[in-house]
């Protein structure tokens, strides 16, 4: 096919092939799919780590682009620069979140939270929901990195639950919380790669996650307390699902998605605490011991300083208009030129997303860390060696995570700039029915996150593809992206990299396969419900066509 061919996408504008486009054949589609297939095969069959498989995928993407898609070193250079800008925006959040986690870990904050929760109620079902569902979600909102399971699963084991079930319950409990956890870095990455406004995606995202709340609560209670426990706790599950879902929707629709895990988790905890005042959920409260010392409220509150400050500063920056305006005066954006591949695939001139460094979530995290350090040091909960240990823990964790994100972003931008993503999307649009496709979207997100270990990387890898496929199929793009986001969130908690962390903490090191089999069976239930909801919603939005 020679000549001028074009199509208009609401996401990418007019995409024009001026010369000879890569004709859509099975061969060209498979070549475009090769980098993704590389990640899948290397991780699933050869058990490679995410970083190593991503690096191989990068080499494959570059080779295919140079050989078959008219790529050049100039395109490669621009792709990498764009990938760096994309990754830097997200890494500022990830680094800040990791620093906050290291500080909280050093000050004993996570232990204090774990010890305090059972004090709220002695009802087993309520305790289970508090720890496996809401505390895990709250901790995920603070930082993630497998912390939620690592902290909460041992608490459940200590309460007498089976170690495998403890991992499964805590993992499923916070599966929804990944997308907006860690100051919503995964959601920001979806916005960055697709250029679709977060305000458009966020409401769909809130509703899709809210749909999964009741099944999540039921699964946790069923596993921990059986059907009798489900019947006992069901009114509480409904109440928590409603208040948590409503607060998630309110935060998202008002643009506060960086707090859309912390906020709803706290609302859920408050709801359950209120419910413990009801006769059906009351129990005998027992003293909580930290070593031989009973923990008092003040002790717990001081240890919670990093998270209290994070919520306070986060809300202040977002809600206090004069402060927000002042901080947003400083902004950074980079102009990118038009880029044309050797086959004539044109990426129009564009600007990078505008970054406001002073109101950026990374800055909010950094300020919270600095202020918390002063308070915790003053209260004697940190010593003079603490900064060294905090920085060392942060640095050791962030290097590989940063490399992985940069390399994965490089794969995505390289594929996008030579038309490989476009070819994949055209292939999907021409072969998959527009009624079926929305139901497949969350599972694509799951696969991406399961393989790469993070919701971030799943969104970077598949976000642009999903948006373009949705555009070609004339589907509602924000809904499809919300479904990708939901799948990515739920897939990331089941990824082997995170399972390893959780299994070690409950003495199941080396038995990840056994846990994974149990986890997949239950974990796929909320994902399937979201997939069905997406398909029905998409069908309704298309007027039943």
């Amino acid at each position, binding site marked *: 096919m020679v000549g001028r061919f074009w199509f208009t996408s609401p996401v990418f504008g007019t995409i024009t092939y001026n010369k000879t486009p890569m004709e859509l054949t099975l061969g060209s589609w498979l070549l475009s799919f090769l980098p993704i297939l590389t990640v899948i095969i290397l991780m699933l069959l050869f058990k490679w*780590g995410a970083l190593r498989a991503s690096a191989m995928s990068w080499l494959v993407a570059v080779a295919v682009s140079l050989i078959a898609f008219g790529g050049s070193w100039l395109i490669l250079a621009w792709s*990498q620069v764009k990938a760096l800008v994309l990754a830097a925006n997200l890494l500022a959040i990830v680094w800040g979140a990791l620093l906050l986690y290291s500080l909280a870990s050093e000050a004993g904050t996570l232990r204090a939270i774990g010890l305090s929760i059972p004090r709220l109620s002695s009802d087993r079902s309520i305790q289970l929901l508090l720890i496996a569902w809401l505390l895990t979600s709250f901790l995920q909102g603070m930082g993630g990195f497998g912390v939620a399971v690592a902290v909460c699963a041992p608490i459940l084991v200590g309460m007498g639950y089976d170690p495998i079930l403890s991992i499964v319950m805590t993992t499923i409990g916070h599966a929804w919380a990944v997308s907006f956890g860690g100051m919503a870095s995964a959601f920001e990455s979806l916005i960055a790669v697709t250029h679709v406004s977060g305000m458009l995606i966020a409401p769909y995202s809130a509703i899709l996650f809210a749909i999964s709340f009741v099944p999540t609560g039921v699964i946790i209670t069923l596993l921990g307390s059986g059907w009798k426990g489900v019947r006992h706790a069901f009114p509480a599950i409904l109440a928590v699902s409603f208040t948590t879902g409503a607060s998630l929707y309110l935060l998202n629709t008002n643009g506060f998605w960086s707090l859309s895990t912390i906020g709803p988790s706290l609302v859920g905890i408050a709801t359950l605490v209120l419910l413990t005042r009801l006769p059906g959920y009351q129990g005998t409260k027992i003293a909580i011991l930290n070593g031989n010392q009973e923990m008092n409220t003040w002790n717990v509150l001081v240890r919670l300083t990093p998270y209290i400050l994070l919520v306070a500063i986060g809300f202040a920056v977002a809600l206090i208009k004069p402060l927000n305006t002042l901080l947003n005066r400083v902004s950074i954006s980079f102009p990118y030129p038009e880029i044309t591949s050797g086959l004539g695939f044109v990426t129009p001139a564009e600007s990078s997303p505008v970054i406001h460094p002073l109101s950026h979530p990374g800055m909010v995290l950094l300020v919270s860390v600095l202020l918390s350090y002063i308070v915790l040091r003053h209260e004697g909960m940190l010593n003079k060696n603490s900064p060294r240990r905090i920085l060392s823990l942060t640095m050791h964790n962030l290097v590989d995570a940063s490399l992985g994100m*940069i390399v994965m972003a490089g794969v995505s931008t390289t594929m996008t700039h030579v038309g490989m993503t476009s070819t994949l999307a055209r292939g999907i649009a021409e072969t998959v029915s527009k009624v079926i496709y929305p139901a497949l979207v969350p599972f694509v997100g799951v696969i991406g996150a399961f393989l790469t270990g993070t919701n971030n990387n799943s969104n970077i890898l598949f976000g642009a593809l999903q948006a373009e496929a949705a555009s070609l199929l004339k589907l509602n793009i924000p809904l499809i992206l919300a479904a990708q986001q939901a799948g990515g969130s739920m897939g990331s908690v089941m990824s082997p990299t995170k399972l390893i962390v959780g299994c070690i903490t409950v003495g199941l090191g080396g038995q990840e396969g056994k846990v994974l089999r149990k986890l997949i069976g239950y974990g796929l239930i909320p994902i399937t419900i979201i997939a069905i909801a997406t398909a029905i919603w998409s069908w309704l939005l298309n007027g039943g066509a």
Partner: protein
Amino acid sequence: MSLSKGSKKFRISMLILIIEVLLPLVLLYALNHNYPMLGRITSAILVLGIIYLVVFK
């Protein structure tokens, strides 16, 4: 003073991270200002850094 295996791996990873961050910018400069030799060297190091990740990570 010899470094432990862990420290060596960490330092090499750090070096690769710096390479992957800085070299695309150098490559872009070289290509835009017509320095082909610099461009070739930069792109070779960039690719070698990725190959290191594939082989040793």
